[in-house]
């Protein structure tokens, strides 16, 4: 239900069952949390003994029982247990397990440092806190990546890239060749919430999408939620990608980096106060322009590069207080000489304060800043810019009420400022175009519980209540069918222009069939109040974010998932089969011929409709041993129905891919040498091709009969990587990666253009453009 009245919705306007739902959850939580008798709590943090980094998701379990918990994003854990003797095990994949005998007669703090397990060969696996977490966890549609696994997966130009790696997972697809843009379960790329240390990243790619903005050297943990999205995430309709930066080594100074074909990177980290305060600074700069200039492919006065800088400082003041400061600064620069050029980039910043009220109640307070802007300059006298800027506040609590219930609740509020576009001229002869800046507040409160019900049933359920308020100064316009304004209402500064409210229940259940298999079911409702204006599939820096308004309603997605999870051979193999069905409301498309850029009446050109997506995802992976890897297959269909498009009939969304298959494998030849390969196959995107033609003014003009009624040719590609570890020389370690992208040199179609033949008079032809042939690359990495 969507409310679009111009007042803040009163409780009476909310869906009538919302108060009952909240009350029900509260009563249920109260009952389940009061039935536990006398118990004490073990709490603390789990860190890496060599770097002091928090081990997110590390497992804490009571041996001989199914009782346990995992460390949160900050490495903190809390587990309440009955009085008496307990044998507690602390584990994290790739680390030595520590077991402690604990006599519980009072609440105690145990801070654990785990050592990397050097006897285990490095693995390319999707890691988790415990080996069978995929089976036992109530949450489904979630994947966790460790940055270590990125090291050996072959990628374009040898640039390690988390966004391209997650595209190898089921349900996640690339938008086009070589692109870091991705879609999740039939959603569009702008429906993915991408968070870097809690700050939203609005444009996650460099160089027109070929490289992501995330420098893997600075990252620690990546979690992507496709379904079963916890209630603490919101604001996007399809998925959440939560990326955590490293905190910095608080034991020793360390330097790492790499030299590649396209870019180089350098990371410095170390303690400011040993074991208490540490920093990390990580930078990356591309130098493709320097190479291109040498090869005369680019003039000397042209520029073409990108850079990133990740910085983070954390200070553990005492056992109860910890502060984190983190920031990201990235830019793409294109210069064409003679004062012409463009640049764009993201800036994010987060200040976080962890506070432990007691050993059961963990709090995190965040102040968040995010900015994306784009600027274009012509001839030193014409400037164009657009962008979005956020200031946010977030308060999250985790209450480890008892071993069977972990309750999260919190609130957040973000002030968005949108700059849809400004075109200015230095000379006085021309008229500036300044589109009205827009402002809005987006806020939410949420509560969720992760609950164990008996030995077999687990649940994660919660509710998120979100609200979006567009505020003045501004102008709310009404349009006729010819895109002409018929009415306008002016609003003063701070005046409420439009409000939307959404309730977003999130429910997941897992039933353990036996020790190695489970069934899961989940339901999600997600609301998205921001809209990306873009008319390209692969994404452009000029794409512009807009708020929901009187004419633009929020997108709302309901997702239902069902899955079967099975592990084999002592958890060496994981298998999952997940199916999903999604309904989408208020999905947007444009009227034919819409000019997006600097269009002051753009809202009148946007058509709104419904969508649906459904699919089956199969995933088989081998986690340990000399050979590791996975096979991921997705069978899906995504459709839209929007009045004014395709004669008002259903049509396939442009991101629809019937089949999407990825095979990833790594074989450890010996301690120093490993060979990796990925093979990718997917059905070509749905596209609109002409079915006829006609002549007008001497030109052959294509005639179209159906929206997205054709397919691009099917895509497949093999990539290879040889990873060679250098001989360790005291602290200095190095490695080489020799990669081959598109190993059998397939000319996959990037675009297909229809045109008049240049050789045969009067004939028309289809021309395929392929971007990349076989692309070799070499990267040298070092660390000391």
């Amino acid at each position, binding site marked *: 239900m969507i409310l679009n009245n111009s007042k803040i919705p009163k409780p009476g306007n909310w869906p009538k069952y919302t108060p009952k739902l909240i009350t029900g959850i509260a009563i249920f939580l109260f009952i389940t949390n009061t039935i536990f008798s006398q118990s004490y709590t073990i709490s603390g943090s789990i860190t890496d003994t060599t770097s002091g980094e928090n081990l997110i998701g590390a497992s804490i379990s009571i041996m001989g029982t199914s009782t346990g918990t995992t460390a949160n994003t900050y490495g903190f854990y809390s587990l309440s247990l009955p009085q008496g003797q307990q044998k507690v095990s602390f584990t994290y994949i790739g680390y030595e397990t520590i077991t402690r005998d604990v006599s519980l007669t009072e609440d105690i703090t145990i801070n654990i440092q785990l050592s990397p397990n050097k006897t285990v060969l490095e693995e390319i696996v999707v890691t988790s806190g415990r080996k069978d977490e995929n089976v036992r966890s109530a949450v489904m549609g979630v994947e966790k990546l460790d940055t270590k696994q990125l090291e050996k997966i072959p990628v374009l130009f040898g640039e390690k890239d988390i966004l391209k790696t997650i595209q190898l997972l089921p349900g996640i697809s690339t938008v086009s060749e070589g692109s870091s843009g991705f879609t999740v379960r039939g959603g569009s790329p702008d429906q993915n919430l991408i968070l870097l240390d809690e700050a939203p990243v609005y444009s996650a790619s460099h160089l027109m999408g070929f490289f992501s903005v995330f420098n893997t050297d600075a990252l620690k943990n990546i979690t992507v939620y496709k379904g079963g999205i916890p209630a603490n995430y919101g604001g996007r309709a399809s998925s959440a990608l939560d990326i955590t930066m490293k905190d910095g080594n608080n034991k020793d100074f360390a330097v790492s980096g790499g030299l590649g074909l396209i870019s180089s990177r350098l990371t410095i980290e170390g303690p400011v106060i040993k074991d208490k305060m540490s920093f990390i600074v990580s930078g990356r700069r591309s130098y493709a322009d320097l190479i291109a200039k040498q090869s005369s492919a680019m003039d000397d006065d042209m520029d073409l590069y990108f850079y990133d800088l990740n910085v983070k400082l954390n200070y553990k003041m005492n056992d109860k207080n910890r502060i984190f400061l983190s920031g990201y600064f990235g830019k793409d620069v294109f210069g064409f000489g003679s004062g012409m050029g463009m640049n764009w980039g993201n800036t994010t910043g987060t200040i976080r304060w962890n506070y432990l009220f007691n050993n059961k109640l963990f709090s995190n307070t965040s102040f968040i800043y995010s900015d994306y802007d784009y600027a274009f300059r012509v001839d030193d006298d014409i400037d164009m810019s657009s962008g979005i800027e956020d200031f946010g506040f977030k308060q999250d609590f985790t209450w480890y009420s008892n071993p069977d219930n972990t309750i999260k609740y919190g609130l957040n509020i973000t002030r968005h400022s949108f700059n849809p576009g400004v075109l200015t001229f230095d000379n006085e002869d021309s008229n500036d175009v300044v589109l009205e800046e827009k402002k809005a507040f987006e806020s939410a409160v949420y509560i969720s519980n992760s609950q164990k019900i008996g030995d077999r049933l687990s649940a994660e359920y919660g509710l998120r209540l979100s609200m979006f308020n567009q505020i003045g100064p501004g102008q709310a316009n009404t349009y006729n069918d010819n895109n002409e304004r018929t009415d306008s209402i002016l609003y003063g500064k701070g005046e409420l222009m439009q409000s939307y409210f959404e309730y977003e229940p999130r429910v997941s259940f897992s039933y353990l069939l036996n020790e190695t298999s489970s069934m899961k079911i989940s339901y999600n409702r997600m609301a998205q109040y921001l809209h990306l204006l873009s008319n390209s599939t692969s994404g452009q820096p000029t794409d512009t974010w807009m708020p929901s308004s009187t004419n633009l309603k929020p997108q709302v997605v309901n997702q239902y998932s069902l899955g079967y999870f099975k592990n084999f051979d002592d958890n060496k193999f994981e298998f999952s089969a997940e199916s999903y069905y999604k309904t989408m409301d208020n999905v947007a498309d444009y009227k034919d011929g819409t000019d997006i850029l600097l269009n002051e009446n753009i809202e009148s050109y946007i058509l709104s409709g419904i969508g649906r997506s459904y699919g089956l995802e199969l995933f088989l992976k081998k986690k340990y041993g000399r050979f590791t890897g996975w096979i991921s297959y997705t069978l899906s269909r995504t459709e839209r129905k929007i009045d004014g498009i395709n004669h008002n009939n259903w049509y396939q969304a442009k991101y629809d891919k019937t089949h999407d298959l990825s095979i990833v494998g790594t074989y450890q030849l010996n301690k120093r040498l490993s060979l990796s390969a990925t093979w990718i196959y997917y059905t070509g995107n749905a596209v609109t091709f002409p079915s006829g033609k*006609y*002549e007008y003014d001497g030109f052959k003009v*294509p005639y179209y009969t159906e929206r997205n009624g054709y397919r691009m040719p099917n895509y497949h590609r093999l990539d290879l990587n040889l990873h060679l570890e250098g001989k360790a020389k005291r602290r200095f370690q190095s490695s080489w990666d020799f990669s081959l992208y598109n190993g059998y040199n397939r000319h996959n179609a990037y675009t297909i253009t229809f045109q008049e033949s240049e050789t045969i008079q009067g004939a028309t032809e289809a021309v395929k453009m392929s971007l990349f042939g076989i692309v070799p690359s070499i990267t040298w990495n070092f660390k000391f």
Partner: protein
Amino acid sequence: MKYLKYLTVNLNSIAIITSIASILALSSCEEVIEIDLNSSNPVLVAEGQIVKDSAVWIKLSYTNDYFNSEDAIFEDNASVVLTDSDNNSEALVYIGDGIYKGDILLGEVYEDYTINISTEKGKYDGKSTLMPPSKIYEIEVSESEMQRPGQDETAYSLEIKFKDVSTADNYYMMKFFVNDKLDSYALVDDKIFLVGDTVIYPVMRKEFYLTDEIIVRLHTVDKDAYNYYYQINDAISDGMGPGGSSTPYNPASNFGEEVLGYFVAWSYVSDTVVIE
């Protein structure tokens, strides 16, 4: 407003393409491919115009399959009538090759014209207003600010100064004939580069080269015709696929949804420049 698209999007496109090409050291490649396209039912195509001080003509034909290299089938049995805003009308005469021609009514400035087509399948009306001609003051040739990387031949660009025809919103469509062949369009409105009553339009989308003889034909059109030619321009220059731009579409005819093409009333002036 549409000019902005040329200014920014096309500059972006050039920048993007040239830059990426530089990175890849031109590793991308193009090839003509075989592709199966569906057959489509023939749809009536009308291309008509009335020019200031001239008689009307209209060509009626049908669409054919995209890869069909045969000539289009003409509609030779239609009844076509032109009517002006004073209700003067004239029946057009079929002269062959799908062309129907008038003789009596000559184009007049600010006159609204309606052309009616009757075929076996239906009746269709197209309307357009004839706007006054502009005047080209000057065409300035200069070396282009953006030269293609790795290309020895110098590219040139044009800046065209012309008279804005009135104080109201005005719309212009330029045709560039390069060495006697219609090469491309440009759509310009008078909202941006208007200095007094002069529009100064730098042609940034198109590059020209030494010895090119360029005829610039400047049409003054009404808003609907401007929109149509904007869409036609999109239709003849778009690419499809994940790397392509907006979803392709059929330009909206002023004869309605069952017909393709357009009936336009306009005036124009021309000037010629040679790159030397």
